[in-house]
């Protein structure tokens, strides 16, 4: 295993200009990466270069700029394919984000395969984006949403999952990593078990791709979604991976330009994958920026990132354990990137405000996962979330900040 020192983090931090600033007179300590990550210079430069030099609409232009933007756009698709180890480029669909990817699957695969009395299985760890699209589908179809419970550590109860599967189960949708708690789900086993019932599995990878190597063929999942902005790329762009055969069978979602082969008022024939699902002018610059982010991650190596972050998370977990009156929420044995906690007698919003004045950016609230909060009997938590540009000094600053919070409220 590589050690912490195998990443040159001070050089990495140079790549993220936003980190070198003061907030409220203190050095910025950015620990809100699960909400959105910062962008390396190469991503910002890729966006700038596109708009300075290459901007044109893609796919149909015969002129030079259109050629260049089309090449750059499609090159990024290849980068995503390799990043996820997908079998084919046409299995990569560009969408606005993980949320849109889930909605696409719910509205196409879901609407054609789910009917009255059928069941969709999710876990109690899900972000609202992997709950609400399925609720909407169930509402429309008279189907039932079944929820795999979690234990006190915040881990999915696998035996309960096995019991939920039956011949009415039409889809399983679970997160790879929980945004509120950082739990890494055993998605490979979940897929294997669901496939035993011929049930396809969608994995919400929004919180996994920034932290670990993801191999969709190894996982054997049917759908995988993630958001560009959480993986050091721009906002407004995301990816839906789907197995080719499933995507082929699915009806298109949005109609419009680019997703058609020919249109008459009598009949429209649809384009091939992946264009069938990419109606309208996409976020071309966003796709190119995401490609640049993936190049950057490839250079560093996801395995090195995972090992570094693992050590940092261990360091953070130990540091928080030593603070009296602090309770960690989410203590799964397999975790990535998240330190979620509550402090006795202090509401997370007050903690967040005091930490902010110390230059520390954390998130407070329910993290768009209200059922997770209910499970642990809290209305909200304070969440510090890590990226590979964070350092032990950031954790130390967080600990000092928490002591400051306690001091204010000790009066």
């Amino acid at each position: 295993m590589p050690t912490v020192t195998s990443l040159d983090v001070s050089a990495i931090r140079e790549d993220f200009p936003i980190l070198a600033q003061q907030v409220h007179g203190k050095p910025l300590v950015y620990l809100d990466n699960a909400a959105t990550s910062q962008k390396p210079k190469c991503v910002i430069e890729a966006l700038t270069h596109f708009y300075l030099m290459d901007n044109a609409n893609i796919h149909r232009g015969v002129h030079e700029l259109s050629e260049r933007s089309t090449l750059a756009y499609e090159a990024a698709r290849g980068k995503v394919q390799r990043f996820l180890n997908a079998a084919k480029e046409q299995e990569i669909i560009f969408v606005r984000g993980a949320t849109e990817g889930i909605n696409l699957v719910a509205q196409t695969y879901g609407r054609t395969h789910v009917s009255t009395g059928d069941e969709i299985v999710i876990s109690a760890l899900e972000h609202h984006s992997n709950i609400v699209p399925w609720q909407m589908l169930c509402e429309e179809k008279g189907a039932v949403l079944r929820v795999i419970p979690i234990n006190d550590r915040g881990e999915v109860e696998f035996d309960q999952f096995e019991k939920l599967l039956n011949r009415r189960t039409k889809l399983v949708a679970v997160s790879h990593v929980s945004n509120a708690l950082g739990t890494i789900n055993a998605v490979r086993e979940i897929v294997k078990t669901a496939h035993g019932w011929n049930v396809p599995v969608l994995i919400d990878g929004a919180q996994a791709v920034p932290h670990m190597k993801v191999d969709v063929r190894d996982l054997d999942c049917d759908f995988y979604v993630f958001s560009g902005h959480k993986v050091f790329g721009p906002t407004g762009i995301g990816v839906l991976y789907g197995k080719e055969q499933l995507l082929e069978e699915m009806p298109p979602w949005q109609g419009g330009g680019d997703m058609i082969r020919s249109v008459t008022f009598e009949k429209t024939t649809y384009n091939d994958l992946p264009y069938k699902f990419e109606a309208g002018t996409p976020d071309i610059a966003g796709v190119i920026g995401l490609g640049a982010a993936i190049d950057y991650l490839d250079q560093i190596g996801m395995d090195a990132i995972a090992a570094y972050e693992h050590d940092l998370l261990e360091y953070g977990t130990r540091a928080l354990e030593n603070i009296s009156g602090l309770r960690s929420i989410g203590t799964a044995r397999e975790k990535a990137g998240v330190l979620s906690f509550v402090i006795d007698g202090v509401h997370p919003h007050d903690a967040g405000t005091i930490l902010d004045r110390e230059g520390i950016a954390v998130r407070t609230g329910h993290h768009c996962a209200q059922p997770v909060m209910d499970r642990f009997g809290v209305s909200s938590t304070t969440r510090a979330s890590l990226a590979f540009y964070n350092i032990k000094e950031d954790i130390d600053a967080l600990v000092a900040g928490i002591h400051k919070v306690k001091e204010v409220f000790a009066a």
Partner: protein
Amino acid sequence: MINDLYQETILDHSKRPRNFRLLEDANRKAEGYNPLCGDKCKVFLKENNGVLAEVTFQGAGCAISTASASLMTETLKGKTIAEAEALLAKFHDLLTTDQSLPNDLGKLAVFSGVREFPARVKCATLAWHTLRAALRGAGEVVSTK
């Protein structure tokens, strides 16, 4: 400065909220909700001939919202409905405008520090939004959003 926000009075009322109870014989009540943070607030009023004889609240929230609700109930007891409406407007101005401080807000002036923390203004106004709903008898859950 963080101490301008968390002044002694605010910390005191957040830890030991006054009039923090259900009012069985309330003749007006309302429920408030801040969807951003999940804070909830119920305000109960007992009004006799246009005067607020009793004002109580229940709920769960941050220090700012709890202290704001607590100080609100203390301030309003014995006031007429017209006076309560006037205070509501003044309190709102205190948090959202740069005008010099109205000098008749009494203890409520401790919330002037909230102005420097725009993300927290809704915490301080939740109880007052709920009060308005109770006074105007809307009877539904009001949201700060």
